[in-house]
């Protein structure tokens, strides 16, 4: 490599090793990766909604299945719980940008609690709903879509758990909060997805 030095001319003679990496996009690779991943997640949900469409619309099956009832109200309250977790998350995110550590910690902690509550209410709903995924295709779709979403809430909670612990340990600052930003995008996505699931499964 040293042979290069006399030839290098305008080249920075002190710079050893590979050249500076060039950034050809203003978007962070991590952010871009998360957005692409979310697109793939939307496609997973789209496939499950196709199953819903085939069973409810194409197959002309009754919805919900004869003799069953969906707890629209409880699920509605649960929807409010999940949506407010997006607000508290937003609070945590703006707090860290303003250097407000209390807001960060309190925001993350409430977000985590709200998410966990949502999941518990959903499990409770499964226990009391009175039909199983094996009873009929409508049951399969119900558990399929809400279960798929629940699994996403669970993964989101794992991510938020890490972020919460980190914020209590003093991580993140005004300048450096990507570790909060990117799981946050995922969580907002999970929330928005729930609105679609709730509307299609419970309301229409």
């Amino acid at each position, binding site marked *: 490599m040293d042979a290069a030095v006399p030839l290098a001319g305008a080249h920075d003679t002190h710079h050893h090793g590979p050249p500076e990496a060039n950034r050809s996009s203003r978007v962070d690779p991590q952010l871009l990766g998360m957005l692409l991943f979310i697109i793939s997640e939307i*496609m997973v949900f789209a496939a499950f909604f196709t199953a819903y469409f085939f069973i409810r619309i194409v197959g002309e099956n009754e919805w919900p299945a004869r003799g069953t009832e969906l707890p629209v109200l409880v699920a509605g309250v649960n929807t409010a719980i999940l949506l407010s977790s997006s607000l508290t998350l937003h609070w945590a995110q703006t707090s860290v940008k303003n250097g407000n550590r209390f807001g960060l910690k309190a925001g993350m902690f409430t977000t985590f609690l709200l998410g966990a509550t949502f999941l518990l209410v959903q499990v409770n709903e499964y226990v009391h709903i009175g039909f199983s995924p094996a009873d009929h295709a409508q049951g399969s779709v119900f558990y399929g879509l809400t279960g798929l979403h629940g699994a996403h809430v669970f993964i989101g909670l794992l991510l938020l758990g890490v972020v919460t612990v980190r914020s209590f340990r003093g991580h993140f600052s005004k300048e450096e909060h990507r570790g909060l930003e990117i799981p946050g995008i995922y969580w907002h996505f999970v929330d928005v997805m729930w609105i679609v699931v709730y509307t299609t499964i419970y309301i229409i």
Partner: protein
Amino acid sequence: MATTETPAPSSTAAAPPALPQIVAHKVERPNTGWTSWVTTTDHKKIGIMYLVLTFVFFILGGVEALLIRLQLAQADNTLLSPQTYNELFTMHGTTMIFLFVVPIWAGFGNYFVPLMIGARDMAFPKLNAMSFWMLLMGGIVFYASIFFSPPECGWTCYSPLSSSNYLPTSGVDAWIFLIHLTGISSLIGAINFYATIANMRAPGLGWGRLPLFVWTILTYSILLILALPVIAAAVTLLLTDRHFGTHFYDPSSGGSPLLWQHLFWFFGHPEVYIMILPGFGVVSEVLPVFARKPIFGYKAIAAATVVIAFLGLLVWAHHMFATPSPTIVLVFFMMSSFLIAVPTGVKIFNWIATLWRGTIEYKTPLLFSVGFIGTFLIGGITGVFLAIFPVDWQLTDTYFVVAHLHYVLVGGSVFTIFAGLYYWFPKMTGRMMFEGLGKTSFWLMLVGFHTTFFVQHAIGLDGMPRRVYEYPDVGNLELYNQISTVGSFILATGIGVTVFNVYRSLKKGPIAGPDPWKGNTLEWYTQSPPPANNFDSVPRIRSVEPMKDIRRQVARQGEPAEPQVPIASASTAPEQGLQPSSGG
């Protein structure tokens, strides 16, 4: 490790600019031997591992194909049991698609995308390693099923055949997990490619100067991101149907087997473009180099790639013409399938125009590329036949479809994979492959391929269904099938010659130097094989063919016309010449 940068020893000579320093508490010794492979996050090593692994699967899938052809060499043959036969064609199709063609493009992409865009590595090196290992896991899970009961439902695993009523054995589950694991592998890989191409291009390398192979890998990634999640969801529903009593595909309880077909083919048709588009990219790189002429219609080819991908998402039901569907649906999918032939035709004309009046060098990569154009063209034409739904009603599920899909997949994907192998082998290993063996391999493969598959059009037109283990001795069926079997062994011999060629060239091949073909793109700017960090300096890109610019610049400075010198001067001298101020 990127984080342990020690101050440069020679930096005391002049007043050094303050460099940020990271004190290394512990420097890990570089791994050597096999541990350097299993622990690597280097895109080139991962690329090589991809290529080797997928080629192993290619050989396995090939052996399965030969067994299939042996069974069919005689009417009413009893060589294989019907069950074994079903297992073989399922293993064959699944292996070739999920373990060979799709991931081998990830292998080429891994090795060459960072080099072609002047990057040091992929955007997420650790995830990249994970992609490879997930692929290996998928392959192991699937092939482990040969020790109990391989799946028997074909690569399409249609419901209800794949339900636990008809196939209670766990082979189908092995197939499902293969889809999950290779799917995660490809999905992570696709996100990685996209982020790499978006974020890490060399200075001046705008979208309008992106090498066409990189364009196709970008499109390949987008299609993977859109299509794979759908099949992943579909097989998850299949898994719960099989094991947890759900009824997604079960018509007796309100489910729908058509749901499977829609989900499968919404993935399945984009999948065929996932398998062919990077091949288009390879050909678009090889032709201008060996015709010694710029690619004709760079923008048209790049745009056609994207248009094909978009239309490819709208044609899936042409695989389902035989299912009960309203005529308007049939017409829609027929028209959209016709439409997709247009951008494909655009590409073919552009390639021919690239060759037109070129100074053609008949090297093996060029032969495979030209062989591809002719062969793929036939497959495209039979595709348009099949897209006419009344014709398809006659031909679906016959050997005509088998002929079509092999013309596009072997004549298309496999030939371009071989073109890529012969073209890039010198870059990856520092040695050329032997031309004589390469040409022998090409001609054997071309002749063997057409002998095997051309006659299958006739077999299909005579009405022989696909996926049957025996046939009666009526008409010319036995003769046709024998021709096909003979052809398959010629084809296999041709592939064997290339395997031998790789083996010999690794040890004895002529030394290649950095740029043996006088290439156009940036991978030829660095050593062969490239050093761990790829480039010591990255030039500013000013056109679609940066290497041509560099060679011209070097020639103008009175230096040797080719940068055949070691990397240090090869990479720094031209760069100096390329500074905007020193032009002229």
